[in-house]
């Protein structure tokens, strides 16, 4: 075994548990208030969970244009979706379609 391979294996051994552990625990929050989605979280990966928190007085939804997620959010309530697909996912509120956003999901 070459030094390079040893180093690579050692690196894998360190990174693998970290990344799998981090992926399992990753939760990102997107807030909704006054008829708008708040800032998008960075570093979202496929398999992560988005917690949508509706601080508004109105019922909203977070509905992906590609239909990969669609959650209804009663006023003052929150809901989770797991993002499965990598890429830029545009979404909107199906009740108020002028409310929109896009979330970047890495592999």
């Amino acid at each position, binding site marked *: 075994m070459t030094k390079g391979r040893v180093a690579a294996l050692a690196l894998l051994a360190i990174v693998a548990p970290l990344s799998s552990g981090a992926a399992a625990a990753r939760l990102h929050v997107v807030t909704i208030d*006054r*008829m*708008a989605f708040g800032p998008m979280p960075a570093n979202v990966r496929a398999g992560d969970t988005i917690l949508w928190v509706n601080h508004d*007085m*109105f*019922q909203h939804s977070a509905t992906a244009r590609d239909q990969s997620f669609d959650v209804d959010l009663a*006023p003052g309530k929150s809901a989770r979706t797991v993002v499965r697909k990598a890429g830029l996912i545009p979404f909107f509120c199906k*009740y*108020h*379609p*002028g*409310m929109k956003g896009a979330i970047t999901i890495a592999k």
Partner: protein
Amino acid sequence: MLKLFACAGAAALLAAAAPAADKPNDAQIAHIAYTAGTLDIEAGKQALAKSHNKAVRDFASEMVRDHTAVNDKALALVKKLGVTPQDNPTSAGLKSAADKKRDELAKLSGAAFDKAYVQNEVAYHRTVNGALKDVLIPSAQNGELKSLLQTGLTLFSEHQQHAEHLAAGLK
């Protein structure tokens, strides 16, 4: 008729603005906003009682739900501020126009009702949004009231677009 209604709304607003030192005060603004919401809730309830069209019923449910939410917030705000909403010619104008329209709609059914209801929702939201943007928001003195009216304008603009989209589909 739609044009007449829009004109009646605008004329009533001008009438309200004239006697009270050019612009409505917060107590009048709160009354106008609450009345506008209540009238649209009543229109939505009428549609839910009469329409069998799913898209129209979904829209009407949304109107009842959203306008009730804003009005609940408005009531809580005036209570907190110790303001008693004050009746005024604008509120009265909106109410008499809406009463007339409700009677007209009551005589219709089926697709004719759906079309007339949705067309009126387009006109109504256009009138109220114009009033919010040009008169009510600029005139509001209290910051919290102004902010609630601004959220209301964003919401009602969504409703206007939704109604326009729906109206286009019913033709």
